[in-house]
C-alpha cells in the first residue's frame, strides 16, 4: 500500500457517492461489492428524494422545517446535528445530481418538478419517473466509471466482505474479502474502511429489499466489535404487493399522486371493486387523519392497514390480507407519465392493470432505521464540522459507516424520500473526513494481522464445506427465521412474544451449526456464501428482538400496545384539560426514561449487550407526536403552554423534568 487508499464496501448510492468524491479529491479507492455496483439495491427506490426547493420556500418552507419534519417523523430518536447538516445540504445534493444528468421530471418551464411525500405538508420530493433510485444510482455509477478509466478507482465486483482487520490498538487497518467466482481470499489493507452495505431485510425472509440485503457485512463488523444502534426500529412499509419470493413495493408516490386507500364497508364484499359505490367504501386513512389523509407517516399508515385487516376484519380477501390502493380516478396519461415504472411492476407481476382496477396491497418490511453506531462532531451552529475524523466513524477507529447501514439519520421512523438523501449526503460528506484520515496514516507493517485473518476465514470456509452430513437445510432455516421475525417484530410487538422468540432465535443459531452445504466445490459456490450470510443474520436478529423486548414504550415504528398512551376520554372542558395535563406529564416522564438510543455490542456467542445513550435534542425539543390522536388539540395546547414557560430554562419541558 504505497499511496493513500480507502476501501469502500458497497456500491449503492452511499458507496458510490463516497467513491466519486474521494477519487475527485485524489484518493485511490478500492470498491468492493457483492454484485456489479450498477445492480445494487438502490435501483429499487422508486418515489423520490427530498429537499427544500425554490417552490416550497415560497410557501414558507426552509431547511429548518425539513429538519423538524425529519425529527418529528422520527419521534426525536435521532441526534439532531447530523440531521441538520443533511437537510442543509439537501438542495445542494439535488442540484449536484441534476448536473450529473439525472432525468428528473420537469415542469413546463423546464425546472425540476416536485411531489409531496408522507410526513410533510410541502412538495419537497424531486423524482425521475418512478425509478428515482435507479436514475440517481446510474448517475453516480457513470461518474465512478469515469474515474475508473482514469485509474483512481478499482472495482472488485462479485466480492464478499468477510471481516475488518483490527490492530492491537483496535484500529481498523483494512479488511479481508472473498472472490465469489474463484472463492479465493484476499487482504485489502487501507487507511480507512467504509461500510456502505445497505439494509438487512432478508432477516425477515421476504421484504421489499433485494436478495443481497442480508446485512452480512454489518453483522461481521458488529461481531468484530462495532456497536449497533437502534436495531429494534424496522420500518414496515404500508403498501407492498404480496408475493411468494419477494414483497414488491408499491411506492408512497402512488398516494403522493392522489392514490386513495380504502376497504369495502361490508367485509369481503364480493362485488367488483369498481362497482362498489362511494357510500360502501371506507376511506379509513382520510376519515381518521383528515389533515394528512392518505399521506400520514409510514408507521401510522402501516398500523392502520394492519388494524383494519386483523382487528376489524375488513381485509379485501379473507385468507390473503389486503386493502385497496386505488388510482383509477386519475387520468391514465398522468399515471403513465408520473408513475409508469411502478404501475408496470404491478401489471407485470400480478397480471392486472392498476389503471383500471384498484391494487391489492399489504404492509411489508422495508427499511432498517437502526444500523452501525457512528459518531459526529457538532459545529458551533448546530450542524457538523466538515472533515472531522469523527463524522460517520464507528466506535472502531478507521472503520466508517454510511447510507442505510448507519443508524444516524432516521430515528424511530424514516420519512419517505429521506433515505436517498441521507445515503448520498453521508457518502459525499464522509469524503473529506477520509481524506484527513489518509493524511495521518499509520505506517507500521500489518501483514501479520492480515495473514492471521485470512487463515481464520479459510478455516471457517473449510469447516462449512466439510459439513455435508448435517441435518439442517440453510434455506429452510432462513424461512423459519423470517417467519418468526415477521410475526413478532414488525407492526405490533408484545413482550410475551418477543421473549420466547429470542430463545427460539438462539436455538436456530445453534441449529445453523448443523447446516449441511450441498455444494462443496470451490468455484462460484453460492450455497456456502448464502449459508455464511445466514449464520451472520442471527446476531442481528437477536439484537433486534432484545432491543424491542427491553424498550417498554411506543416510539415511531416500535409499537407496543401494552405501553401505548391512549387519547383523552373526558368531554367536559375542565376534566379534559386535567386529562391533557396528565397526558403531558406521562409523556414527559416517558421521554425522560426512553428518549435514548439503544446501543448493542456483541457479547460472547453473538448475544447482544444492550446499553443506552442520550440523544442530542438541542435544536428542537421533543414534543408529542399527535397525528390523529383523540384529544390531540387539548394536549397540544397544554404542551405549547409548557414549552413557552420552559423557554430559557435548560430543563426538558414537562412536570416531572
Amino acid at each position: 500500500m504505497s499511496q493513500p487508499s480507502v476501501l469502500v464496501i458497497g456500491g449503492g448510492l452511499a458507496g458510490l457517492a463516497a467513491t466519486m468524491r474521494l477519487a475527485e479529491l485524489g484518493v485511490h479507492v478500492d470498491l468492493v461489492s457483492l454484485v456489479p455496483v450498477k445492480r445494487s439495491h438502490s435501483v429499487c427506490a422508486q418515489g423520490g428524494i427530498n429537499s427544500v426547493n425554490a417552490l416550497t420556500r415560497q410557501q414558507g418552507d426552509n431547511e429548518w422545517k425539513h429538519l423538524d419534519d425529519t425529527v418529528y417523523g422520527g419521534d426525536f430518536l435521532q441526534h439532531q446535528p447530523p440531521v441538520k447538516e443533511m437537510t442543509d445540504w439537501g438542495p445542494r445534493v439535488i442540484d449536484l445530481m441534476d448536473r450529473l444528468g439525472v432525468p428528473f421530471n420537469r415542469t413546463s418551464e423546464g425546472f425540476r418538478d416536485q411531489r409531496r411525500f408522507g410526513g410533510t405538508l410541502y412538495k419537497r420530493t424531486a423524482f425521475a419517473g418512478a425509478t428515482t433510485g435507479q436514475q440517481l444510482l446510474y448517475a453516480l455509477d457513470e461518474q465512478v466509471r469515469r474515474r475508473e478509466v482514469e485509474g483512481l478507482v478499482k472495482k472488485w465486483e462479485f466480492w464478499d466482505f468477510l471481516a475488518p482487520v483490527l490492530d492491537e490498538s483496535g484500529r481498523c487497518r483494512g479488511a479481508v474479502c472473498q472472490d465469489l467466482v474463484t472463492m479465493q481470499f484476499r487482504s485489502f489493507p487501507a487507511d480507512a474502511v467504509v461500510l456502505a452495505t445497505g439494509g438487512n431485510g432478508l432477516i425477515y425472509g421476504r421484504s421489499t429489499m433485494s436478495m443481497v440485503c442480508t446485512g452480512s457485512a454489518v453483522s461481521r463488523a458488529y461481531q468484530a466489535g462495532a456497536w449497533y444502534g437502534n436495531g429494534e426500529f424496522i420500518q414496515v412499509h404500508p403498501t407492498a404487493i404480496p408475493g411468494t419470493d419477494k414483497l414488491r413495493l408499491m411506492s408512497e408516490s402512488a398516494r403522493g399522486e392522489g392514490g386513495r386507500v380504502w376497504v369495502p364497508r361490508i367485509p369481503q364484499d364480493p362485488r367488483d371493486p369498481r362497482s362498489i359505490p362511494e357510500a360502501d367504501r371506507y376511506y379509513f386513512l382520510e376519515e381518521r387523519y383528515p389533515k394528512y389523509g392518505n399521506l400520514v407517516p409510514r408507521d401510522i399508515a402501516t398500523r392502520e392497514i394492519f388494524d383494519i385487516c386483523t382487528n376489524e376484519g375488513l381485509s379485501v380477501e379473507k385468507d390473503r390480507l389486503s386493502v385497496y390502493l386505488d388510482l383509477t380516478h386519475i387520468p391514465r396519461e398522468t399515471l403513465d407519465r408520473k408513475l409508469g415504472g411502478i404501475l408496470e411492476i404491478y401489471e407485470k407481476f400480478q397480471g392486472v392493470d392498476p389503471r383500471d382496477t384498484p391494487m391489492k396491497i399489504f404492509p411489508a418490511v422495508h427499511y432498517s432505521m437502526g444500523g452501525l453506531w457512528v459518531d459526529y462532531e457538532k459545529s458551533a451552529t448546530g450542524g457538523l464540522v466538515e472533515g472531522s475524523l469523527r463524522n460517520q466513524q464507528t466506535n472502531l477507529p478507521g472503520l466508517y459507516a454510511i447510507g442505510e447501514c448507519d443508524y444516524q439519520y432516521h430515528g424511530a421512523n424514516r420519512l419517505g424520500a429521506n433515505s436517498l438523501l441521507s445515503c448520498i449526503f453521508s457518502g459525499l460528506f464522509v469524503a473529506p473526513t477520509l481524506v484527513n484520515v489518509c493524511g495521518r496514516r499509520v505506517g507500521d507493517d500489518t501483514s501479520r494481522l492480515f495473514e492471521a485473518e485470512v487463515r481464520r476465514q479459510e478455516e471457517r470456509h473449510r469447516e462449512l464445506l466439510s459439513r455435508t452430513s448435517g441435518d439442517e437445510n440453510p434455506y429452510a432455516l432462513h424461512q423459519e427465521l423470517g417467519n418468526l421475525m415477521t410475526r413478532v417484530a414488525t407492526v405490533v410487538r408484545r413482550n410475551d412474544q418477543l421473549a420466547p422468540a429470542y430463545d427460539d432465535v438462539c436455538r436456530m443459531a445453534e441449529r445453523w451449526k448443523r447446516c449441511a452445504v450441498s455444494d462443496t466445490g470451490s468455484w462460484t459456490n453460492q450455497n456456502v456464501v448464502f449459508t455464511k450470510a445466514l449464520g451472520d443474520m442471527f446476531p442481528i436478529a437477536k439484537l433486534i428482538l432484545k432491543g424491542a423486548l427491553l424498550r417498554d414504550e411506543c416510539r415511531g415504528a416500535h409499537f407496543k400496545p401494552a405501553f401505548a398512551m391512549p387519547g383523552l376520554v373526558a368531554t367536559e372542558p375542565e376534566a379534559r384539560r386535567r386529562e391533557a395535563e396528565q397526558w403531558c406529564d406521562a409523556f414527559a416522564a416517558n421521554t425522560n426514561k426512553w428518549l435514548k438510543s439503544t446501543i448493542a455490542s456483541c457479547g460472547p456467542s453473538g448475544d447482544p449487550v444492550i446499553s443506552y445513550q442520550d440523544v442530542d435534542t438541542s435544536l428542537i425539543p421533543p414534543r408529542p407526536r399527535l397525528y390523529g390522536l383523540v384529544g390531540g388539540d387539548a394536549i397540544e395546547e397544554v404542551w405549547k403552554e409548557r414549552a413557552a414557560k420552559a423557554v430559557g430554562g435548560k430543563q426538558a419541558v414537562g412536570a416531572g423534568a
Partner: protein
Amino acid sequence: MIKASETVVDADAAHGGHGDGNATRTVRVRVLRQDVAGGESYWERHEVAYEPNMNVISVLQKIAASAKSQDGRRVAPVAWDCCCLEEVCGSCTMLINGRTRMACSSLVDRLMAEDGEEIELRPMSKFPVVRDLVVDRKRLFGGLEKVKAWVPVEGSYDLGPGPRISPEEQEDAYPLSTCMSCGCCVEACPQYTKVEVVRRDDETEAEFEKRRKAAFNAGFVGPHAVSQAMLFNAHPTGRMIADERMEALTRQGGIQMCGNAQNCVAVCPKSIPLTRSIARAGRAATVWAIKKLFDR
C-alpha cells in the same frame, strides 16, 4: 404448440387452491449446466412443486433448497444471478425457453401457456459462462466506457442546478436512461459475437485485463452502448464531448457494424427505443464523417 386447454384447467385449479390435482402439480425444468468456466456443459432435469404466481427465480430457489435432480440424485445447486427481483437491476438475464429474458419477471404460468410441459433454462450465449446460468458480462460495461457514457462535470462542488430541460427532452431521455445493462439486446444481436479471453499462465492480471479490453474493443460495442451514447449526446452538458463519443462509435466495433436486424429492440425488457437510437447514431456518424473530411 401445446394443448391450451390443459394449461387453462391447471391454472384455474391453482388460483382456487382447492383443485385435487393441485397438491401434486409440479414444474419441470431442464437446465444447461456447466461446472466451471471453460468446462463441458450438460443437461440436468429438475422438478419442483408448483405455486401460483411463481416466477423462474422461485423455481431456482426451490432447486437450490432441494439440491436434488429429478431422478433423486444429490447434485450441487444450480448457480444463477439475481438481485432486485423486480426487473430493475438487470442481473438475472438468461435464455428461458430459448428466448433471452429476465428470470424474475418470467412467470411460470405464462411460460407453461407458451411452451407447455417443461421450462428450459440456458445461460446467455454471448458471454463466457462462469458457472451454470452465471455469465461474465464485463464487456457490457466496457461498452459504456468506450462511448464515455457520462456527463463530464467538473466535479461535485456546489455549482448550482443543472441545465434547464424541457419536459419533452426529459421524456425523450428518460426511457434511454432506464437501461439496466441486462444484455438481452446484445444476446439477440447477430453482430454481437462472443468474445472469450482466457488468462495465460505467464500473464499478470494487468496484462490480461489489457488484452481482454483490446479484444472487447475490437468487437461490436452493442446497441445498449449506442443508445447510451445518444442519451448523453442529447444532454446539454453531456453533448460537450459528443465528438469523442462519435469518434468511438465510428472506430472499429462501432455503429457501422449494426446490420439493422432490429432483433435488439424486440427483446429489450425495458422497451427502450433502441432502433431510434441506432438510427440517430447512424445519421450522426454520417455527419461526423463529413465533418472530419472537412477538418482535415
